[in-house]
């Protein structure tokens, strides 16, 4: 049967980028549809009525939403180049760190980027604490997944481009030589063809996040 795989995303979303990596790592043919979130397509709204968000993967007409759910679906449907290990404990560990990325680290970094004054300071402290946990988890390993990238690497991937862009735009210093393992990891990750060739254009990202930063920090 001819497979039909579609990925609804935007040009810049880190959550959609994860899915791009997973599909390409497994050599799956798919059609990418870049949405304009200010004018969502009827299809997107039909495929993700609960959240109306990207990414959405549509496999033979059946939609799957939420990037972590999509990643596990991809791994279970296409068995080549597994993203998750076989051992239940290692799987639990990978899922734990994936969740940590999205529920703790992204939120604290986003707060540091968007808030001001005391709230910003607190968010910075939280972000540094969170990065320290991740640094400890990574220590000694090339990737979170070991010799090859796995779920946690894919999910933490935003540290490789989005975080430096936040830093460049806001002047915040987060991922620096206080976290040598993480810095080394971002370099290893960025060398992978599937990562290197899929980063959204740097200049376009700077323009986007500069505009967003100014919205949150209006010049009085």
């Amino acid at each position, binding site marked *: 049967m001819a497979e039909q795989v579609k990925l609804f995303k935007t040009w810049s979303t880190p959550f959609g980028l994860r899915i791009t990596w997973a599909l390409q790592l497994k050599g799956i043919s798919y059609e990418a549809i870049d949405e304009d979130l200010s004018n969502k397509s009827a299809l997107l709204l039909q495929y993700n009525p609960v959240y109306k968000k990207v990414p959405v993967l549509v496999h033979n007409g059946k939609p799957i939403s939420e990037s972590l759910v999509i990643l596990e679906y991809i791994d279970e449907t296409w068995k080549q180049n597994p993203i998750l290990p076989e051992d*239940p404990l290692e799987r639990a560990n990978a899922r*734990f760190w994936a969740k940590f990325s999205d529920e703790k680290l992204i939120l604290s970094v986003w707060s540091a980027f968007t808030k001001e004054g005391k709230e910003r300071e607190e968010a910075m402290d939280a972000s540094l604490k969170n990065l320290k946990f991740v640094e400890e988890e990574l220590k000694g390993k090339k990737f979170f997944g070991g010799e090859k990238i796995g779920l946690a690497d894919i999910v933490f991937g935003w540290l490789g481009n989005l975080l430096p862009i936040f830093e460049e735009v806001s002047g915040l210093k987060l991922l620096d030589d206080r976290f040598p393992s993480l810095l080394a990891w971002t370099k290893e990750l960025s060398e992978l063809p599937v990562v290197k060739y899929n980063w959204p254009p740097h200049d376009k990202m700077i323009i986007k996040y500069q505009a967003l930063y100014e919205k949150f920090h209006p010049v009085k």
Partner: protein
Amino acid sequence: MEKSDVKVKVLGSWSSPFVLRARIALNIKSVNYEFLQERLWEGKSELLLKSNPVHKKIPVLIHGEQPICESLIIVQYIDEAWSSGPSILPSDPYERATARFWAAYLDEKWFPSMRSVGIAQGDDAKKAAIAQVEEGLALLEEAFAKCSKGKAFFGGDQIGFLDISFGSFLGWLRVTEKMSETKLLSEAKTPALLSWAHKFCSHPAVKDVMPDTEKLAEFSKTILARFRGAAPPKS
């Protein structure tokens, strides 16, 4: 390998719906475990802080020497580590994705909306909070029809991942109904979920660990009082 003679412990509290998930999953697999009740007002135990240094939260499953944290991750671990017992996740990848999607929805959107009902001050705020919960229940009623395919549970004939994820909140749902004097699950609006809730709570893997609604209601009054400003007793 079954690892059936390795010691299993659950660190948690009788009142936590997240802890309940781990216990139900272990019961489904007929795994014997030691339940270690955290002392609620006396600060977190050494074992908890050591086993979950990142979040310092319950539940923690300790299998042999290995801690596993985060309730939905624990449930999946239980399913995968005791693979010869009844399956908790469905076998079809799309059904698994659907179950995971709704479990995440419950944790990220629905349960927080239910908690808001308890915290809401004033009639308008309460009404708005209840409306949000009911919106979510309408979605879940639809999801039940699709997942159950006419059977008793989200998982079909047997309780599965989504049954556990959602069912673990039923104690708190009943407390919320009691405190707000509203029926959140009803014959009129959510007949399938109403029937499912009853079956879930009567299930052998659930009935002995589901907290008693009265006890939970008393407990919630204590928490609310503390939340609203009474200082916790120092141990």
